[in-house]
């Protein structure tokens, strides 16, 4: 069971999505900077809550209760950028360049790594002129092995670091981080722009909701998650 983030009136005051990497630096006396990175990057999220009304406070409390510490997972998206910047008021009125309504998902994707190790993702089946701004997310969702189709319980995402615009045939090439592990994300995964998210696990030691105050409100809190990426 993977829970969604609670949809509250108060919302989330501040959010930070960061790519967590473990680096071992080896600076040398000569001034040369050496080092090696251990393992592969995952997403980490820090959501800070501020002045939460009574109804929202109950929802957040229920959310943290239902997470059961680290037992359950939740879908986490960047609430500051759940849709592409240029289409932040909705994408449902768009049509694909090849015809047909655009539902927020690309009809094809592929990743190429250039000589500088940048990940360039080619997305097909977008509306002509579809704009991807820096900081927009591209989500990838696929079914866990053995799960029913279109349950999409496996998710990850990339964040655009260079802007891109789809050409007349609906194709866009966007440079994004972190590069996808194409042996992990199957080729049949769906690349999408509507609320790209990843599956996260709560970090209960760092998450906290402040005590309930007058009228059931809470002054603040923080919900910390770290990505649980599985094939």
């Amino acid at each position, binding site marked *: 069971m993977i829970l969604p983030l609670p949809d509250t009136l108060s919302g989330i005051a501040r959010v930070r999505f960061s790519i967590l990497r473990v680096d071992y630096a080896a600076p040398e006396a000569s001034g040369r900077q050496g080092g090696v990175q251990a*393992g592969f990057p995952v997403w980490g999220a820090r959501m800070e809550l501020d002045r939460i009304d009574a109804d929202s406070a109950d929802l957040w409390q229920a959310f943290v209760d239902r997470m059961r510490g680290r037992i359950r997972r939740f879908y986490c998206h960047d609430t500051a950028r759940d849709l592409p910047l240029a289409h932040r008021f909705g994408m449902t009125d768009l049509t694909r360049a090849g015809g047909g309504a655009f539902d927020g998902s690309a009809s094809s994707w592929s990743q190429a790594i250039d000589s500088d190790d940048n990940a360039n993702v080619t997305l097909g089946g977008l509306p002509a002129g579809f704009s991807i701004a820096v900081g927009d997310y591209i989500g990838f969702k696929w079914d866990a092995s053995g799960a029913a189709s279109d349950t999409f319980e496996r998710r990850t995402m990339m964040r655009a670091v260079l802007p891109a615009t789809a050409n007349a045939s609906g194709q866009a090439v966007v440079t994004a981080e972190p590069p996808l*592990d194409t042996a992990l994300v199957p080729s049949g995964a769906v690349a999408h722009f509507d609320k790209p998210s990843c599956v996260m696990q709560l970090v209960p030691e760092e998450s906290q909701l402040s005590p309930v105050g007058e009228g059931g409100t809470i002054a603040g809190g923080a919900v910390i998650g770290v990505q649980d990426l*599985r094939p």
Partner: protein
Amino acid sequence: MKSFTTGALAALESGKAIAVGAVEIGSDPVIRVWGGLRPITFDGRTFDPVGDRGLVRVAGGALGSSAQNITLRLSGIEPEILELLDASEVQGAPTILWRLIFNAARTTLLDYHIWARGRLDTLPREEEIGGTAAIEATLETAARGLGRRGSRMRSDADQRLLDANDGFFKNTAYAAEKKLYWGGPRPARAGSALGGSRGGGGGGGTGRDLIER
């Protein structure tokens, strides 16, 4: 000697490498895990993911000093690892540790090589309430004594500890600690340059300056 592929060397040189460990423990059943997020096959073996980035925590040692053992820190809640606690013939199971080098985009395995071979030594568990659960597998590599008592030296003193009347190594030279002056003021006498006159068998009965070879 470890030989690296050109691509791996270039990635290490430029600091763009991502290094991940993989370990095979020859218990029954054989356990193969690596620090990635998906199964991987190389060298004819398939490794299960544990996603633990700090797979190899301590792998140290210096030339001439006592060698250190290697500590593998394995997540204690992965089902692949839990088998380890249940597996028979864990004690002393042959263990191979690989190091995998990926490119900066983590999409290409540039090189893999065996980092160490050894036998599984101790297997302490660590469970911390509100913290992490992990198994630490200590790997004893060949020819390393893990600082235990009972290690032998090829010296007369050591032999006589076993049997005071056994003079088998009486005439055998052993490696004593010699300080050599490279640069600096020239020593007045040859004896002060080499820091004593030991070196013959039986001469250094105290064994104080012995270092293990």
